[in-house]
């Protein structure tokens, strides 16, 4: 096993082309568990912790470009918190302070877990994922990036570079069901936005299907929206909950989310 530590994005992309099987590490909150428990023994680990281009965020003509290395703690801080409130709420439900100081949005996208907490709020805001290789970069709509449980559209020689999102400014919220406030993998989760400008109710659920999924309805159809969200889900029975419970919980979360957002 070897660790390669590039100091620039160009170097990182070159190394990823030379070692397409290299496993990237950023915050380590997923990969280190696999290493500590002997579940993964990658030949090469690509340490992205020293790539300045992946850090921070910028705004250009209303479009936010959020570096893949942005931590949950950073997503919770102003002014990002006000620009993407549901993402900030979701970030606050991730793990613990220790985890939020390390875990990154890029890592959540790379792992592509159905339970990834940042994914529903980003789906509601129509986020795109910017990925790059030595050959150039491309943008992938988040719903196309998430192709299956723990599977994404990244090619072997590509790295996740940024998340692109144009904040809607719509009232929005994020809710998550779990046995306690901290250290919970979502039993199910839901991001909700009421976008009056587009005339849309928007919701995206997590942990209730193979991938987090976006559900949209016209603004006037609020009464039927919770049932629509629940029926769009395809949950399974597992250690964290039953399919029936998840469907029920999504309906309840949708009612609460709409109440919050319609009152705003």
């Amino acid at each position, binding site marked *: *096993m*070897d*660790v390669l*530590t590039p100091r620039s994005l160009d170097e990182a992309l070159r190394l990823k082309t030379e070692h397409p099987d290299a496993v990237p*590490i950023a*915050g*380590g*909150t997923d*990969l*280190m*568990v696999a*290493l*500590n*428990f002997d579940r993964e*023994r990658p030949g090469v*680990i690509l*340490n992205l*912790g*020293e790539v300045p281009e992946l850090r921070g965020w910028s705004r250009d003509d209303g479009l936010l470009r959020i570096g893949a290395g942005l931590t949950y*703690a950073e997503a919770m801080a102003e002014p990002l918190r006000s620009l993407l409130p549901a993402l900030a709420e979701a970030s606050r439900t991730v*793990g*613990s*302070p*220790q*985890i939020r*100081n*390390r875990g990154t949005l890029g890592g959540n996208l790379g792992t592509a877990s159905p339970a990834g907490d940042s994914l529903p709020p980003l789906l509601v805001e129509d986020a795109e994922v910017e990925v790059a290789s030595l050959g150039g970069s491309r943008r992938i709509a988040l719903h196309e990036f998430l192709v299956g449980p723990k599977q994404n559209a990244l090619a072997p020689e590509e790295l996740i570079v940024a998340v692109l999102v144009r904040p809607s400014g719509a009232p929005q919220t994020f809710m998550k069901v779990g046995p306690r*406030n*901290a*250290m919970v993998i979502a039993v199910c989760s839901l991001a909700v936005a009421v976008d009056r400008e587009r005339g849309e109710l928007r919701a995206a659920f997590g942990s209730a299907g193979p991938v987090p999924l976006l559900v949209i309805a016209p603004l006037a159809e609020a009464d039927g929206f919770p049932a629509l969200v629940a029926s769009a889900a395809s949950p399974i029975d597992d250690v964290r909950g039953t399919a029936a419970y998840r469907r029920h919980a999504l309906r309840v979360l949708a009612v609460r989310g709409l109440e919050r957002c319609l009152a705003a």
Partner: protein
Amino acid sequence: MRIELTVNGERQEADVWAGESLLFALRERLGLPGSKNACEQGECGSCSVLLDGRLVCSCLVLAAQADGHEVVTVEGLAGDGELHPVQDAFVRAGAVQCGFCTPGLVVAAADLLQRSPQPSDDEIREALSGNLCRCTGYQKILDAVSLAASGADA
């Protein structure tokens, strides 16, 4: 591979295996067993340290990622034979039972008080939510953090 880092203010070098955690390097290579090894998956907080001033689980940091960075462990909190105010408050409040979780809780509490010297009860609970105590001595732990924040003398 060789890494070079600053631990508790001192420049250190260590030869580490590529896949090992910062926690392993601290305990087994650098002779600092204060950070405890329990869950190895970021659930329990016993291995909490400050990495570049931020509270992290050292079991979830690849040792190689700490190369060139600054780490403060529980051993680095006390100065010149004096307990850190949080350590002193843990002793006075009786916030230690078996003691295994204590180093992580002390580091997390010290981090909180540095950022927020007068935290509310909710703030304390949230700041310590990533640290588990199997003896369930939570009430006295919360008391200890409040005591440390109050600055009351022994």
